């Protein structure tokens, strides 16, 4: 068996709200191999953040896990590999052994994940002292080195500063330094650059990539920005209404997508060469998961929907060894439907551009 660090199997979660139960996660499977980067893409409300919060054991109190397992494998300090099912552990154990220690998380807005009343240094050292059992002095030395590593100038002075004295990009660098401070095995980035400017976004992504290579960390990106995905990911999971609807490696998802929702996502984002008079849109809006979904959740917005879509939910059809999609269009009995003409042109253009630049994976 390959060296899988994280395996989410058939995860199913319901939230109880005043309006009734919301079936937010409806059987999600995600695999992540050691050292690789997986992106989870989807619209807001698709459940991508909920899945990652479950991995961290920080779900809201009104959530009920109906089914599933989250297997996490890590090396203990003595070199032994351990496998745990995070869903079976209590909060206290997770807090002590997983959060910040083995799995670290970077959130969207750096200002809300930093404590405004604590100095940068104190916040950085806190986790290391707690998890690694080192002295204040050792922690302080490590903290300075970490700040240097994430590209912060004058680290000694920054240690005594407060979050409000730094710019947005610097704050996100601090958060990244905190995340990697305890040598985690897995880093979860929840929209890490959405709150930042494009120029800073590029630098932060490059930083995460560099750190990942140096420390051998596996990374999960949660994002809705396909440009970011193209830059960082090895594998992509496309999520819609609490389900993974397509999964594949980066080339398969961008150059040979099979699910109509992925087609829509790719065409809705203008690339710099788009000059069509109108953007392709996915009509309507995501379903309300308060109501139990019958058949394919995407069918009402899908212009290629078949009759079967309103009756039965499509299974995952396998296309290649790594590429799966949940759409009835892939059933051998279905009429042959190709990806939309505009998208085909776009893919051809992308491949041509890649050839011209000699871009290699």
């Amino acid at each position, binding site marked *: 068996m390959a060296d899988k660090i994280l395996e989410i199997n058939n995860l199913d979660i319901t939230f109880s709200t005043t309006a009734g139960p919301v079936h937010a996660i409806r059987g999600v499977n995600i695999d992540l191999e050691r050292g690789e980067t997986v992106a989870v893409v989807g619209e807001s409300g698709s459940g991508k953040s909920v899945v990652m919060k479950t991995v961290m054991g920080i779900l809201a109190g009104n959530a009920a896990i109906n089914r599933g397992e989250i297997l996490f494998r890590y090396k203990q300090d003595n070199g032994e590999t351990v496998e745990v099912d995070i869903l079976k552990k209590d909060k206290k154990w997770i807090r002590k052994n997983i959060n910040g220690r083995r799995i670290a998380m970077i959130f969207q807005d750096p200002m809300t994940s930093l404590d405004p009343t604590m100095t940068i240094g104190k916040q950085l050292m806190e986790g290391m002292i707690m998890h690694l059992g080192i002295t204040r002095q050792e922690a302080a030395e490590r903290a300075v080195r970490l700040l240097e590593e994430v590209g912060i100038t004058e680290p000694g002075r920054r240690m005594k500063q407060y979050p409000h004295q730094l710019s947005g990009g610097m704050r996100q660098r601090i958060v990244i330094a905190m995340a990697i401070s305890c040598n985690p095995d897995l880093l979860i980035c929840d929209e890490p650059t959405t709150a930042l400017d494009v120029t800073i976004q590029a630098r932060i*992504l490059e930083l995460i990539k560099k750190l990942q290579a140096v420390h051998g960390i596996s990374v999960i990106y949660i994002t809705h920005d396909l*440009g970011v995905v193209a830059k960082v990911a090895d594998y992509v999971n496309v999520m819609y209404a609490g389900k993974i609807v397509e999964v594949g490696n980066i080339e398969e998802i961008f150059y040979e997508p099979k699910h109509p929702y992925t087609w829509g996502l790719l065409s809705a984002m203008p690339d710099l060469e788009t000059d069509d008079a109108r*953007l392709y849109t996915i009509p309507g809006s995501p379903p309300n998961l308060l109501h139990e979904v019958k058949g394919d959740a995407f069918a009402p917005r899908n212009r290629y929907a078949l009759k079967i879509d309103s009756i039965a939910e499509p299974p995952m059809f396998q296309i290649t060894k790594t590429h799966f999609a949940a759409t009835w269009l892939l059933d051998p009995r279905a009429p042959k439907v190709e990806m939309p003409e505009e998208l085909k042109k776009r893919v051809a253009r992308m491949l041509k551009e890649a050839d011209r630049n000699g*871009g290699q994976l």
Partner: protein
Amino acid sequence: MAANYNAEPILKVEHMSQHFKINSAFTVKAVDDVSFEIYPGETYGLVGESGSGKTTIGRGIIRLYDPTGGKITFKGADITGRLNRETSQLLRTKMQMIFQDPMASLNPRKKIGDIIGEGLDIHHMYRTKEERKEHIDGILKKVGLAVEHYDRYPYQFSGGQRQRVGIARALIMNPELIIADECISALDVSIQAQVVNLMKDIQEETGTAYLFIAHDLSMVKYISDRIGVLHLGKMLETGTTDEIFSRPLHPYTKSLLSAIPSPNPRVEKARTAVEYDYETSGIDYGKGSLTLVEGTHYVHGTAEEVRKWTSESAG
């Protein structure tokens, strides 16, 4: 209706400045000596990072702030300084704004119909209740909402629908210029495309001009006829979308364009963004001025800098 460049510009901004005095010793120059114009039916995109002053310009034009310097002319009337009754009336009806966060800009205790109709009420633009209702229903349909939505409240709508309400509220006054401040940034990708298409359709139908303020360059490129690049309150480069994207001259513009992530993994993985740091770049924004390069393409810099950049891009 395409942009009409032969007509008089609908909006002319000349040497606009917006300084905020923090204390006697320190003044923030949020916008410093910025000039541009917008023609009828045109979409002008303002781009720049946060803190570059793009929102301040939009707010200064529609007089949510009082610009501290310069002259703004809208439809031939000077709208700087104290406004008299007619110019105020002109500004408040013919220029409208769409805000970034549709939830924060809609009064949660008012019905959608009343939010959209507020402008009509204030300016007494109907004779009977039926006329008002008819007008609002027409606008609702135009932005892709249903007449039944009239009696609902903002919280009952999704993000995309709320932004449609924001657009409807602007449209009901038949504006000739709409300032759209990051109006799609808070929306999901698939919904963004819907709203952008709607804005384009409306422009085609009514011939309104847009000042489109955003930081998402691929969307700006798609929707704009001309673009202005701002940094630290200065207009660094302006020109048609084609001029800016095919031949960016200013190092800041180059770095901004190189930072746009392209949804093409093979290209994107091989690429790194061009870095630009004002402090170490050796460029002093205070020294240069906006210089014409060719056509409508202007770049901000000293004569020597401009010469260097143009020869670099030619070679």
